[in-house]
């Protein structure tokens, strides 16, 4: 499985995410101190590290929920949030940023489903009103996606009636409904009861096997090892160590990585 995906990745080795020296400050606090990383089509990149290491911030920079202060960040070849013209960077309009985000799905730690809408409405809102998909078509896609995440019977339920694991699977389906080329996962299982984690990871694993390009911030080392193609350990706003998950997790070279892994494994 791993070999197959890598081969597919090599064939179309187009970089979906291209980060070069990405920096991010919050006021005077430098949260990212120069992140350089490539995620190629079909690859699953996993970011691990202690809280406050900047891994979630980096993920949020990828779809411009945070604006970067330095370096360059490209998604599918386009600068995130800016346009380069005459050697100068021009900020994108709100509508252009929205346009960029449509190709990037995001799954949050706290699910962030729309509580006043049913599951079906959650899945159809953006396709119909943002992407202009016909309602019948959007509905069919939504039902299909709910089938894929194992919740075909929850079509008309409100999010409040679902367990955390079910909500997160709906959130994944909602992001997929926009037919993204890249999926971002921000600690998708951290808010879940332990017994619900497995179902969500299973859906993510399935998604990876279907060839989705994914960037995953997680504490699930088993998932990282099994599904990840690339793993970066971040601490203090830099990538301390990176490589194949089995190598980094199994044979960490840096003392900081060793210290972190000895605590979580």
């Amino acid at each position, binding site marked *: 499985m791993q070999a197959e995906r890598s081969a597919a990745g090599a064939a179309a080795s187009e970089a979906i995410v291209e980060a070069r020296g990405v920096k991010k400050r919050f006021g005077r606090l430098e949260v990212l101190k120069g992140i350089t990383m490539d995620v190629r089509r079909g690859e699953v990149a996993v970011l691990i590290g202690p809280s406050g290491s900047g891994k979630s911030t980096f993920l949020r920079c990828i779809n411009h929920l945070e604006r970067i202060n330095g370096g360059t960040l490209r998604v599918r070849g386009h600068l995130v949030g800016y346009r380069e013209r005459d050697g100068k960077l021009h900020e994108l309009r709100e509508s252009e940023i929205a346009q960029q*985000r449509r190709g990037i799905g995001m799954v949050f730690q706290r699910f962030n489903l729309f509580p*006043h809408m049913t599951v079906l409405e959650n899945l159809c*809102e*953006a396709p119909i009103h943002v992407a202009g998909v016909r309602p019948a078509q959007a509905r069919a896609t939504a039902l299909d996606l709910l089938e894929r995440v194992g919740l075909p019977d929850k079509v008309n339920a409100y999010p409040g009636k679902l367990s955390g694991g079910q909500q997160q699977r709906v959130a994944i389906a*909602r992001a997929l409904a926009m037919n993204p080329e890249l999926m971002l996962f921000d600690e998708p299982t951290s808010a879940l009861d332990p017994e619900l984690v497995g179902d969500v990871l299973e859906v993510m694993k399935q998604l990876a096997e279907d060839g989705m390009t994914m960037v995953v911030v997680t504490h699930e080392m088993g998932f990282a090892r099994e599904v990840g193609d690339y793993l970066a350990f971040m601490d203090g706003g830099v990538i301390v160590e990176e490589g194949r998950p089995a190598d980094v997790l199994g044979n960490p070279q840096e003392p900081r990585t060793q210290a972190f892994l000895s605590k979580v494994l």
Partner: protein
Amino acid sequence: MAMTPSTPGTAPGTSEPLADDIVAVPVPHPWRWVGAGVVVVVLGLLVWAFSQANIDWSVPPKFFLQEQVLVGMRNTLLISVLAQVVGVALGVLVAVMRQSDNWVTRGVAEFYIWLFRGTPVLVQLMIWYNLSLVFPTIPGTGIVMNSVMTPFTAALLGLGINEGAYMAEIVRSGIQSVDKGQTEAAGALGMSRAHTMRRIVLPQAMRVIIPPTGNEFINMLKTSSLAYSIQYLELLQAAVRIYSNTLQVIEMLITVSAWYLILTTVFSIAQYYLERHFNRSDQDAGVDDGPLSRVRRNLKFGRQE
């Protein structure tokens, strides 16, 4: 402290004895009885004073349903509803404008709130009503100001625009009550800010916005009495017109006070249900126990639901 478990308590409405109910001697509260006595005496003195006063108690019942009073009552309701509608619309608009990252838009909103919250609504009403003194015609149109700025228009503008400044604060607190993750999730799906506000944030903000809006409306029923000063025929103006002929001043003021009490009481009951509806957690239906349901239950002569 003697706890006597001898007489078992009974559940209300049934004869089933509850085995474990504690029956204890309650803490004595002698001062409550003293306080109640004082209240009764003071009330008695007040009633006596008013009965001795030069009030013709036959006037309020006689004028309660008098035509002009009824017109005033209808107009009080009308102007309160319309001004509140204007206030809510302006409040939503201004609250959304305040969230804008365009500083011109934000500045306009802040200025509006500063201006209309910083001046008395009575003064605002009088400015609207007297606008023809400085603009005999509406600038640029040639329409005669006084043909447009009737007491009704002036009252609607004065009360509605003033209310909008207060509603803006209420709407803002509603918008801020919605989790930031909702905006982020909508943004991540590619929704515009306007679409996010309209479809995601505002519907969720309603839970927080609607209950205080009910309170605002009840206040508006009373505040609308200020429109009497610009000749708008609401309840107070009706009373004033009648007593300037009959000179039964206090009698007429008591008459309209009764109407105000009826209106505020009716809408306070409605408000009770509104708040309960929006406070209840999503799932539980809860046991119906408001003032109306108590009345309904008492009126249920063998009718089964």
